[in-house]
């Protein structure tokens, strides 16, 4: 290896005269440090958030026995802190939203990307993106005035049920799912389609067997982002699910009874508790549980993406 002194004269002249090598290296170091700090800060902030949650919520786990936390009664005034009804409420609403939003979102994206004539796509796509911009509380309001009466008319005891919340959440997740899935489908190389069509596959066979599997990681990201938006949503859900912290009867009918979600509980009760009280730390404990659930959900999805598509084997 030659040092700078040994380098040809012509090469040395190319160096800007005002910036000798040492100074340039110094500049590089600063830029590198700034970039590294930015990268680390995300991790640091997440760690701090978790530590804060833990500090505020830990007393709950110490003072309330785990058996009570797993109980079915949430009566904070009587010191009954059973989280199960809230957990079930959140699960019912989220699962319902996923079951509605994922098939609807994927089929809409496939239609937009593969079947719709260009003029229709140019109308639909912006409209769907506008749907993403509607404030969630407006959707909640819509659920309250328009959807709830319909569900009550359909035979439920009240219109404010888990199902109502699930529909509202599904519509909140839909624009994200559609838009990102459509992008993922568009990114599938044209050669895949040609290859399948040239083998005598129909358009639908090509989409089902080739295009969708090829776009899989993009679709998983679309669902994750869409559902992620739905899980964390609070106000709209609070408005339309009825907010009854009880475990609904088992079975399909569970969706047509009022429930209360974990997020709604925190939002509704945080303003009224005494800081530092047991109730206060239980609310933070709910936050911890939520955090763990979304964390588990995200890591599962990342593993799924990293599964096959990232692995490259064999010869090059």
């Amino acid at each position, binding site marked *: 290896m030659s040092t700078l002194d040994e380098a040809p004269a012509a090469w040395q002249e190319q160096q800007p005269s005002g910036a000798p090598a040492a100074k340039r290296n110094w500049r590089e170091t600063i830029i590198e440090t700034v970039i590294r700090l930015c990268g680390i800060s995300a991790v640091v902030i997440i760690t701090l958030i978790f530590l804060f949650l833990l500090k505020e919520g830990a007393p709950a786990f110490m003072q309330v026995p785990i058996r009570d936390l797993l109980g079915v009664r949430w009566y904070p005034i009587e010191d009954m802190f059973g989280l199960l009804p809230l957990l079930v409420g959140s699960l019912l609403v989220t699962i319902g939203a996923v079951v509605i939003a994922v098939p609807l979102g994927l089929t809409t994206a496939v239609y937009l990307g593969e079947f719709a004539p*260009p003029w229709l796509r140019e109308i639909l796509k912006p409209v769907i993106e506008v749907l993403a911009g509607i404030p969630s509380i407006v959707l909640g309001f819509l659920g309250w005035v328009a959807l709830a009466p319909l569900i009550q008319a359909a035979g439920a005891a009240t219109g404010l049920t888990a199902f109502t919340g699930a529909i509202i959440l599904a519509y909140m997740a839909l624009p994200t799912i559609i838009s990102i899935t459509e992008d993922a489908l568009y990114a599938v190389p044209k*050669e*895949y*389609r*040609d*290859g*399948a*069509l*040239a*083998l*005598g*596959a*129909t358009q639908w*066979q090509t989409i089902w*067997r*080739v295009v969708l*599997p*090829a776009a899989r990681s993009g679709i998983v990201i679309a669902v994750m982002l869409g559902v992620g938006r739905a899980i964390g949503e609070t106000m709209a859900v609070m408005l339309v699910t009825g907010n009854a912290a009880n475990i609904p009867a088992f079975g399909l009918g569970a969706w047509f009874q009022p429930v209360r979600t974990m997020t709604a509980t925190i939002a509704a009760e945080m303003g009224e508790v005494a800081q530092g009280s047991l109730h206060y730390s239980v609310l933070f404990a709910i936050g911890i549980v939520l955090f763990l659930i979304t964390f588990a959900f995200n890591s599962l999805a990342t593993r799924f993406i990293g599964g*096959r598509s990232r692995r*490259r*084997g*064999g*010869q*090059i």
Partner: protein
Amino acid sequence: MTAKLSIRDLSFTYADGAQALQHINMEIFANELFVLFGPSRAGKTTLLRLINRLADLLDGVQRSGEILFNDQDVYNPNLDVTYLRRRIGMVFAVPTPLPGSIYANLAYGLEMAGIKDRRIIDERVERSLRQAALWDEVKDRLQDSAFALSGGQKQRMCLARSLVLEPDVILLDNPTSGLDPISTALVEESLFELKQQYTIIMVPHSVQQASRVADRAAFLLNGEVVEIGSQQRIFIHPRDKRTEDYVTGRFG
């Protein structure tokens, strides 16, 4: 002898107004290896993609004239285009393995055609892999990802994938692009075997390859046919000055 494919007064214009083909006339006979060659933008790939109707996917194009396959117009609206594409297979310049294993790639076309019997599928997969001179290299790893194959193996797999449907005609769009000389020789060798059973239309990698493999050839230039004839006629005694200049390497 009746023609397997006859192309009559075919013209084709892309959506941007570029005229890709002008008044093409040619006949291709059964069991011959017919080569379409010429400089880039001559319209070779466009012509291939019109024969199996892959150009259908483009918007705003204009086409006139007809292509007859076994005396039937391929653009007849009553013709089932998926059936046509099973009868006329195609291999692309860039090998296009589909997501999935080698076996899945081979079986795909058969499954699309509604063949479910595993024995028939296994048998045809093996036979077409042998025809494409790939069987010995992959027989122990049929369940591996098709992406793990080398470039030459991918290309031969794509050839096998179109053979598995037992088509009538095979369209080869530069099937040896990016292949090393050994893989190229393997593919060319298998072509001589294949034309006993199939009719092959091929866009070659080079003039040299064209003269090596062709039974008959057509020289295309700027969307027009300059000259059509036997291998001897085109590569040894061309009549048109432009053909002569191109095959002797004076331009192109």
